[in-house]
């Protein structure tokens, strides 16, 4: 099980703070997230892929947009907007 935590606009769109999915890569996890929360399309995800303004952090640490990155059971993905200005 991989937990995806949602922040900011993704949370507003999905209406939930987190979603649990079974996935072995980031790409898998995002595809399943889109199935669970179709409202994330088109603003956050398109066809299970991150739109330009979004990024994920593995366990809140390393930030990436690479769908190939492997995940382990128990990992957490933090989905956030990459525009941090303010």
């Amino acid at each position, binding site marked *: 099980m991989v937990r995806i935590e949602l922040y900011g*606009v993704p949370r*507003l769109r999905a209406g939930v703070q987190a979603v649990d999915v079974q996935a072995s890569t980031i790409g898998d996890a995002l595809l399943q997230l889109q199935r669970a929360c179709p409202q994330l399309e088109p*603003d956050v995800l398109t066809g299970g892929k991150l*739109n*330009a303004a979004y990024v994920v*952090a593995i366990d809140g*640490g390393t930030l990436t947009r690479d769908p190939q990155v492997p995940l382990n059971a128990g990992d957490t993905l*933090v989905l956030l907007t990459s525009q*941090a*200005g303010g």
Partner: protein
Amino acid sequence: MAAGYFGRYLRLDLTTGVSTRVPIDEATLRHFIGGVGLGTVLLTRETSARFDPLGEESCVAFAFSPLVGTPITTSAKFAVVCKSPLTGRLNDALSSSDFAVLGKRSGHDAIVLRGRAEEPCIVLIDEAGARIEPCADLWGTEKGISQLDEQLQKRHPGFAFAIIGTAGEHGVRYATLSNGGRHAGRGGIGAVLGSMRVKAVGVRGRSPISLHAPNDVLEISRDLAKRSLGNATAKYRELGTVANLATFNRLAVLPTRNFQSSQFEGADALSGEQLQATRAQGRGSCRNCTIGCEHFFSARRGNETNRVKMEYESLFALGPLCGVDDPDTVLAASHLCDEFGLDTISAGGTIAFAMECAERGMLESYGEESTIRFGDAEALLELLGHIARRDTPLGDLLADGSQRAADVIGGDAPDFAPHVKGMEIPGYEPRGLQTMALGFAVGTRGADHNRSGAYEVDFSGEVDRFAPNEHAARLAVQTENRASVIDSLILCKFLRGVFAETEGGLYAAASHMLRAVTGWAIDAAEIEVAAERICLAKKLFNIREGWSRSEDTLPKRFTEQALQDGPAKGAVVQIADLEKLIATYYETRGWRSDGSVSQEHIRTYALDREFASLT
């Protein structure tokens, strides 16, 4: 003269009361565009080396831009440029709305104030020139800035005012200048105007703004307005910048208790999501903006409820940084800063620093005031007033900022005073965002998140935010260059995601706009050179004012103490790594390895007129 400009600025000598219209040649305008670029070159030309920012020879430049007065979204902005009394270095701040439009329509590309008035005054500027009016009744009053603004507008209908508050009158080194509920916040412009005895500057005008190709300008405006409502600005429209707080807390980059931690246990209550769900009081926007990032929230204090605009930087600085988790207190503190005319980042940063000193027993000589502690809501609110009025020993000390306060307190206080070049660090934990750490270290304004967008590199997923490489340093340079163009056009930085999606990016879009407005055959490459020139001019101003290589660094807290929180556990800025990034930064800029700049390089950017004497 190119369309979009008047080709002149108004210089008012406050000492003599004489105002003069000074021509600006077209080459200068093309080299510096407007806003921050134009303000920097005018400040440089109007002053001599090593002047005292609070002395009689001080100078403040208000600079407009060719886009002000056009329908292009977010273009109603102006820059205020001076030498900062906080840093002793260049200070460029931006604000927006009526003051920008009416100021430009007074028929000037910039307004320069110099000298010191005999008595407290307001300055009124229009097409006829400038006049100085004494204002003893407005100086030293307990009234907040919004009340003074109403009073001034009744007294002088048709003018838009930029006003200093109590903090500016008392020379607080991070006093703001406020107009219409917006603030040219950082670096102490309010203190500089206070030392000139200027309480407010009012502008009005009806001069038409000429456009080279009005239909093209209209088409550009429509297109940009449409695209400004897309995905790239959704965060700003729907939650505002306060959205950063919960995310930063999760990533362990939320500065907490004077940067001792990077996660805050009270973050949920202060998060943008929570404020939005429980306290939303509508949105607002600067004049002529289609995005509307301003979010208002209700704040209760006793029997009073205020509607307070809140931004992430104020939220973090007056909340987690001071260990305060009560939203009503944080909102009230932000409201107080706005009314006193205090920069929220520096106020929060300096108070948080004092709280840590007090907890370590380093403020014993301040008696009762030495009992302040992290999380003490009442102490925070009270101290803001004492700082603005300088009416208690601790308030007076903290009014000079954390760097000077640390020097007075002594011991190891300078190691954890949260500043670079004297400017308090904004809400991006440098140990968890190490490209931003570089941006802070080399920033010409000191620690600053608006002139360097290096955090974008950390958040991009392209580099390791805990160990950025040389590529990251080069990307950090690019964020500064882009910021200098946006700040000189002037447009809102919240459009940067929109420009990133544009073919050719920001520089192509900027050249398109400037061609339509001015008629210049200017291309993206020339805009990029202008970006580099503006960054270089700021750096050279600092060298002229005494910059030394040792300033480009971070306090020891960030290089010697590892974070202990969540995903950032163990993160520290290794000084050797930071030095490597700085070396790459200097090299990318074309500077010498010690950060100095050769005359040849100065000539390449046609800056030898202003900086011929630097070697």
